[in-house]
């Protein structure tokens, strides 16, 4: 009976947050003498969000990640998981409750896919049936057919498939927190993109707290709700949303790290559906070209969009074309510049630049025509994003280095 209760609860809130918040409090890691790898870092990681740790190699971002599950024991400081201090609890027990994904999946080559995924549930004492069901469920989740893949060995999988199994293994016991260490570093760019998209979809469904280390800033922008940029010694240079980091880099180091094309990267953050579209004069096949021409002249437009009976765009006629036409036919112009409403502004701009009209038609569900997007719309969206980004978000998580501040003061003195 209680089981059915929880089930309905699950259904009613399909997209509830299942993640846990993480707090690193004045965490320091030093190896013997010399400079600390991580120095007095305090960092809040909100529940159910994706936080990307980025920075140059050797900056301590991986050390920071591994201190969350205490694979690396902090020299000083506290780690708090969902309000509970886990700094001194049994490390193995702690790690069983935190998913861990490494580059290339880190699958055990002498175990089948099912055995790899079932490792943590087995350690937690689940019975065989439950483990087998969970393995199949997870394989489905990462888009692998259970019947084809559960009995395979890792070497019989491609790099991308191995990485998927790695993610499935980390999710096996349904942990609230997922730690990923350069998860997509070892696969080709096309597979990486697909895996990133899949991770976004999985995250939309599961709402875990994900902490992910990467050296690829574009990946951080794509996946992250929050991005933490580190410099050497795990100095937290900037900890903010991708939008804010792109619009307002904290200093030159961040600017350099973002690299060229910050403006273009900003375009990948906004979807066409989120910006205001311009209206257009529409026509149907069979209309009189002269009447349509009169209508667009009256409205001060340069073009008219020809739609079919189901409101799908067929042609986009300029005044000049209209003045020469005898009748509007129902042929489909193959070179019509069309973007979907889920496309990014970056894609839209790309389509626009190659179209003769300098604008693009936007379509929604079932290719229904929604409106026109042009360069000025994009410019407006960018300046609006800049304006919005210049105001710091109020719910921004805390992130600071006590150690770094002390060092800076020491220098000044």
């Amino acid at each position, binding site marked *: 009976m209680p089981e059915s209760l929880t089930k309905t609860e699950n259904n009613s809130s399909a997209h509830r947050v299942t993640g846990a918040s993480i707090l690193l409090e004045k965490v320091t890691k030093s190896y013997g003498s010399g400079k600390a790898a991580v120095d007095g870092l305090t960092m809040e990681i909100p529940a159910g969000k994706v936080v990307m740790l980025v920075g140059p190699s050797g900056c301590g971002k991986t050390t920071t990640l591994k201190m969350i599950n205490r694979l690396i024991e902090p020299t000083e400081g506290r780690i708090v998981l969902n309000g509970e201090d886990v700094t001194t609890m049994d490390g*193995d027990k702690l790690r069983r409750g935190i998913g861990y994904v490494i580059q290339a999946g880190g699958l*055990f080559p002498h*175990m089948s896919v099912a055995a790899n995924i079932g490792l943590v549930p087995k350690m937690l004492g689940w019975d065989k049936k439950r483990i087998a069901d969970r393995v199949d469920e997870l394989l489905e989740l990462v888009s692998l057919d259970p019947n084809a893949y559960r009995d395979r060995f890792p070497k019989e999988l491609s790099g991308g498939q191995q990485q998927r199994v790695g993610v499935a293994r980390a999710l096996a016991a349904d942990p609230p927190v997922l730690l990923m260490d350069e998860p997509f570093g070892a696969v080709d760019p096309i597979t990486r993109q697909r895996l990133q998209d899949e991770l976004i979809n999985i995250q939309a469904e599961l709402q875990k707290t994900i902490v992910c280390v990467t050296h690829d800033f574009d990946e951080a922008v794509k996946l992250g709700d929050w991005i933490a940029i580190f410099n050497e010694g795990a100095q937290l240079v900037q900890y903010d949303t991708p939008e804010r980091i792109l619009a307002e880099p904290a200093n030159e180091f961040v600017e350099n790290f973002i690299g060229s094309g910050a403006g273009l990267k900003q375009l990948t953050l906004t979807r066409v559906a989120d910006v205001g579209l311009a209206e257009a004069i529409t026509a149907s096949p069979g209309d009189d070209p002269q009447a349509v021409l009169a209508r667009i002249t009256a409205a001060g437009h340069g073009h008219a969009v020809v739609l079919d009976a189901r409101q799908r765009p067929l042609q986009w006629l300029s005044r000049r074309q209209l003045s020469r036409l005898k009748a509007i036919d129902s042929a489909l112009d193959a070179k019509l510049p069309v973007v979907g409403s889920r496309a990014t502004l970056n894609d839209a701009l790309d389509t626009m630049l190659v179209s003769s009209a300098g604008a693009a038609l936007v379509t929604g569900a079932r290719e229904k025509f929604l409106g026109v997007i042009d360069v000025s719309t994009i410019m407006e969206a960018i300046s609006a994003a800049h304006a919005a980004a210049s105001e710091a978000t109020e719910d921004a998580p805390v992130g600071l280095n006590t150690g770094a501040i002390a060092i800076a003061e020491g220098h000044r003195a």
Partner: protein
Amino acid sequence: MSLAIAELEATRAPSGRSWTPLAYQLLGIVVVLGVLVIWLLTADLTATERTTLDPSALLGYTVEHLKLTFLAAVIVLVIAIPVGIALTRKPLRFLTGPVLAIANIGQAAPAIGLVVLLAFWLGFGFWAATLSLVLYAALPVLRNTMVGLQQVDERLVEAGRGMGMSSTAVLFKVELPLAVPIMLSGIRTALVLLVGTAALATFINGGGLGILITTGVNLNLTRVLITGSVLVALLALAIDWLGRVVEHVAMPKGL
């Protein structure tokens, strides 16, 4: 479903896991043994040769030889494998390099020297022979245990720890299974070495097939000398074959 599995097995089989070379090795051993037996049966043996090469005596020497070999092997396994594991664990890891270097040098030391030196120290006989054999054969086992554990991808160990496996669980479920192929080949090498080196035991009264060789040399009995040498060689090859069969069967799936 079962068909699909059979298909998978079929595609997996050719990847360096064929039984054919093993069958040839066994066939070769049997043929040479047959030739030896026929040659001895048809040869015109002197009386001394006949006594020395009496079948029951030959069997006795062989059993003695195998006893020496296997006793030494068991002692080697019991000592060298745990020591090899211990030397690759974190607290002792700094010793891995030096010990490997010593093991490599020790391997180059001549066996006969070791056997005789130990005999002077411990007195002649079976146990001195066994101890020298153990010392000699421990090196490849120790070496391969350490190398086998060392070559396990560091990231797999970390993945295991990261999932919440204890270090013991990682050792037994990840590191050792992945080290098995290299460890087994070390054990096989040790066994073959043992069979060969056990022939030297006769110098310090340790018994074994070596007596045929020394008798053959001392009394200028060529047939006895040849029989002894060939038997030792065949025994080594047979043990090597057995080791390969075990490696073949014990190879972890998926590698």
